């Protein structure tokens, strides 16, 4: 009889989206799901797990271990351990790019800069903590002000020929600046590009960037043009993993696999 298929789950419960990733013993992603986190993290994570399992074509019995991360990491019923999103993003990105990297993760509510060395060791991290500037929430707020769907922003920014520079780093002040620019008849696409620029600058001023930069998070997943702009601003090559929004969940799943392997090693009779 063939051995049952073993899968490892990683759940990243972000303030805005919940992501679940399933990997197999070869570290391959075989299922994933993303949903709005909503107000019941336990239910949302269960729902994502079911969807990811369906994609993998298997059931809950295949799960050999699960780790949760993110804002709602303590609310995941199926997880055996928790890790911070910093650890998980680092793990997930190093999986794709095993070298000294600096990760810039732009999430819905915060952004993070994580530095890892060539062996995958985390050497430093920073989170923006004080306000929405430089996060997805900033873009959402501004899309509302401009009365455009969030998903149209990337396309609009690409069309810009004369970017509007916004000076303030306060979301509320930026909102006023946006209104002022609308009043002055500036084109929406030029304002949107200015907003992208503002997000990048908020991040650039958080740290210095010497290693290769990897971009992750939902904002970059949906606004690839921002990475192009960042490439210009930083004057560096920028890498983006295959699923930029899933690196946290992938990292969590890799931790689950690692824990299981460690446990197995402990049980082996050498």
């Amino acid at each position, binding site marked *: 009889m063939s051995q049952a298929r073993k899968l490892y789950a990683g759940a990243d419960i972000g303030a805005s989206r919940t992501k679940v990733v399933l990997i197999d013993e070869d570290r391959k992603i075989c299922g994933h799901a993303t949903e709005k986190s909503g107000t019941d993290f336990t239910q949302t994570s269960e729902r994502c797990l079911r969807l990811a399992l369906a994609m993998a074509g298997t059931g809950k019995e295949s799960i050999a271990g699960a780790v949760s991360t993110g804002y709602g990491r303590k609310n995941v019923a199926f997880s055996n351990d928790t890790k911070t999103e910093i650890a998980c993003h680092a793990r997930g990105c190093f999986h794709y790019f095993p070298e000294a990297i600096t990760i810039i993760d732009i999430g819905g509510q915060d952004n993070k800069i994580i530095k890892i060395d060539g062996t995958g060791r985390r050497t430093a991290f920073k989170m923006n903590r*004080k306000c929405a500037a430089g996060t997805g929430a900033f873009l959402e707020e501004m899309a509302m002000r401009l009365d455009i769907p969030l998903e149209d922003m990337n396309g609009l920014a690409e069309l810009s020929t004369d970017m509007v520079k916004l000076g303030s780093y306060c979301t509320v002040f930026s909102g006023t600046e946006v209104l002022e620019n609308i009043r002055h008849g500036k084109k929406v696409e030029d304002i949107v590009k200015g907003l992208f620029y503002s997000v990048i600058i908020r991040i650039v001023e958080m740290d210095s960037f010497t290693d290769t930069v990897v971009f992750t998070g939902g904002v970059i997943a949906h606004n690839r043009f921002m990475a192009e702009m960042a490439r210009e601003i930083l004057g560096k090559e920028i890498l983006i993993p295959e699923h930029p929004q899933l690196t946290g969940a992938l990292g969590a799943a890799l931790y689950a696999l690692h824990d299981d392997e460690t446990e197995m090693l402990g049980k082996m009779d050498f």
Partner: protein
Amino acid sequence: MVEEKEIVIRRLNTARDLGKFMSEYYYELDAASKSGDKKIAWCTSVGPAEILRGLGFLVYFPETHSAMLGTTRMATELIPVANAIGYSPEICSYLTADVGAFLRNVTPLSKAFPGIEKVPRPDVLVYNTNQCRDVQDWFAFYAHRFNVPLLGINSYRGVGDVTGSHLASIKMQLENLIEPLEKIMGKKFDMDLFREAVKLSRECSDLWEQTLATASAKPSPLSFFDGTTLMGPAVVGRGTEAANNCYRMLNSELRERVDKGIGVIDNEKHRIYWDGMPVWGRLGQHSKLFAGLGANVIASTYCSSWIFSALDPKDPFESMARAYTELFIVRDDNYKENYIRNKLDFFDVDGVVYHNSRTCPNNTNCLYGMHQRLEKETGIPSLVIDGDLNDLRCLSDEQTRTNVEAFIEQLEENA
């Protein structure tokens, strides 16, 4: 779902004795305020308390009161009251919380010490701007409200080497306090009493230094979070024998813990240094957060601020000038960097947490790149957390938790 672990934090028995000291201290002030039979001076926490004691004043420290507004979490509701009369939310939240409490006519003292309804009424207010300018403005508010004299020392800031000219100026300012204080007190300054206060204050400083040094033991018998409340008598009682007795008792309990290898937490895996003010309204929460991760915050810049090793009864004015200028908070970044480096070494620290306190840049040391320089020089990783001493509107518990957990994970993975 992941089970929460049980967290062990061992309380010190002598904390109760120190609590008794604080209670007697406040009741004595309250009685004097009600009866008017003893004069009361308000003094800044690193102000010229010894001179005031030498003249026979009872000394009250508004900063300690404000810290109580913080620990009781009354501060966050009171700060806006001061904001409304023009004190910015960006300035010292000790000041704004205290002024707010005064305007609302509330005090945490009445909860802690039944029968006390108000803060003691001052006969004089004496500040030293060695720590910041805010204390001068803070005391000026009360000078106006109570219509009492405001005296003070205007200190140097950002001092590198403490030179003769620094000392000469501060010494003269200290001496110049005597005459107006004599008038308020209605009696002559007694040099012997003053020397005695300086002597007792120096003893208190030495004893407190010994208290803090016990944290170099592994495991540490003491945490920063304990220190922030245990230091009460060293702040408000320095210059009295009763305060010194508290620390004799405390130190013997700590030595016993060290001898028996008893730590304040179980399983001290990581030894953390805290720089900056405590978040008063989150002391318990932060202490549990670190303890739950096997990390003990063993030492801090803040608790060491009440060490005045230069005090010398043989030369009381000059030595006071030196002691209150030599302080960490008065110095330049070069001195501060060295100071912290020595502490990291002495306490054998694995990681440093800098509290970027929104309303107290004076006690925040991660604003001019020092934290990054120190990290590079020592190889000891550091973390900056945003918050405030009193204003809980300036912090996010979730962000703090994630940051601290991620930092300890990093220490663990790199161990």
